[in-house]
């Protein structure tokens, strides 16, 4: 008994580790083999398809890529700028809407009603329609002082749409903070506003960070929608190129630029344990 007790743990441990290594080797082997089969099969299927030579020429032409890339990149810079400004506006406006919607004071009833309508309408209409309506509708009013620049109008449309989504994310976060937290904050003498600011909001925002980031990824992609009202952003530039040269490579270039931004963002969402996939 004493003998087994002194020798057994070491022996068992070596045995276990050996088994673990064998299992790891086997798993790696299976993963590699299945990858080769699946990816190789797909590649073979595509590369041997009758249309492949033409596809390679019209979608993956290196010379077209080199020609179009600088201008597509230039257009993409506009996408980035619009994204950053819209994102900042959305974060602020959505927060204001969410705070109004969770507030119960009777004096705020009209504003509360308005925010509910805002969220219902702008979240309920497809973003592409909003871009179209704002982009062509606002200038048609011919009102003094209203913006006419399609980039600005497109940005406004995106802001309307996304502030609807994002305010609901915030609101869910605020509602998820236990009532006892507000009670405790009030009990130490804070006002309702202070309780919201110092106790409820910090917890709410931390909780909804992953879904918020998810919405940013979606917004980043949706910036391309403003192309339908004219601005020379990446997709638009690529489209013009394609129309002139009958070659789709610039669109692939634009797609790659998007991936350069969205993939790292998606990884960050994963790392934060984000719920749901990227829209």
């Amino acid at each position: 008994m004493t003998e087994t007790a002194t020798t057994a743990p070491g022996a068992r441990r070596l045995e276990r580790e050996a088994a673990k290594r064998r299992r790891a080797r086997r798993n790696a082997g299976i993963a590699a083999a299945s990858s080769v089969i699946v990816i190789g099969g797909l590649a073979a299927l595509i590369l041997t398809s009758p249309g492949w030579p033409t596809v390679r020429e019209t979608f993956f032409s290196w010379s077209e890529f080199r020609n179009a890339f600088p201008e597509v990149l230039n257009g993409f810079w506009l996408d980035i700028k619009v994204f950053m400004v819209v994102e900042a506006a959305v974060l602020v406006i959505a927060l204001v809407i969410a705070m109004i919607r969770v507030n119960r004071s009777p004096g705020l009833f009209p504003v509360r009603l308005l925010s509910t309508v805002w969220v219902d309408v702008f979240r309920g209409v497809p973003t592409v329609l909003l871009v179209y309506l704002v982009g062509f509708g606002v200038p048609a009013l011919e009102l003094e002082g209203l913006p006419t620049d399609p980039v600005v109008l497109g940005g406004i449309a995106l802001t309307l749409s996304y502030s609807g989504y994002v305010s609901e994310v915030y609101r869910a976060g605020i509602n998820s903070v236990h009532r006892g937290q507000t009670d405790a904050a009030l009990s130490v003498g804070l006002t309702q506003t202070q309780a919201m600011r110092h106790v409820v909001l910090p917890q709410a925002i931390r909780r909804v960070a992953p879904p918020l980031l998810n919405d940013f990824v979606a917004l980043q992609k949706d910036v391309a929608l403003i192309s339908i009202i004219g601005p020379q952003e990446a997709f638009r530039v690529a489209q013009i190129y394609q129309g002139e040269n009958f070659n789709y490579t610039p669109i692939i270039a634009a797609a790659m630029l998007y991936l350069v931004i969205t993939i790292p963002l998606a990884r960050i969402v994963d790392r934060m344990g984000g719920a749901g996939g990227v829209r």
Partner: protein
Amino acid sequence: MARGGPPVIEVRGVTKAFGEREVLHGVDFDVAEHEAVALIGASGSGKSTLLRCIDLLEEIDDGDIFLDGEVITDPSVPPVAVRRKLGVVFQAYNLFPHMSVLQNVVLGQMRAQKVGRREAEEEGRALLARFGLAGREDDRPEELSGGQQQRVAIARAFAGKPRALLLDEVTSALDPELVGEVLEAVRDLKAAGMTMVIATHEMAFAREVADEVAFLHQGRIVESGPPRQVLEEPHAEETRRFLARLLEAGRA
């Protein structure tokens, strides 16, 4: 009830209903200065509700509550000013999980009482040390044991130098071996002359620290008096039955 000094808290005919369910049905009771009143009663009898009403976390339907002789349940009285004069320790601690232990204690001081950071933190550290939490100032609440968390909650409630403390079953969420350290903190407050209302299931503790025991039953204070009398020679039939049931459950 002519005991001790002038009453700090007076509850007069307080009624409180949630929808159809009337929880408090004309509660009367008072707490004199430096006095500890133990509030006992079955689960669901309304102990928490009564404490919440006193701190104006719930709006009462009828009756009045006075703090230092002034009515606080009048719509014209700003609740924030009243809450700054009272401290509450909740049944489930309700610490702020996104703040350090020290930040929990000083939040009210800094934001509500407008004490400067330096002074507030100095006082906060001293308070934490007093309740045996020196060295834990920068920890998050989740890193503490239940007993330690509840002591932080006591320090937080006490930090605002309240006129009275409302303690809501401060040991009911704790493992038995952690109860003692929290009761020790309450004893310390009592020795310092703090005016307190203590909702509790710990009869032995009520007997020890309370100057007065009030038994809440079906929305009313059925019986109140010195612990020895209420707990050992209760007049009311309901009190006798309640205590007998506790005895059966092995808690008295």
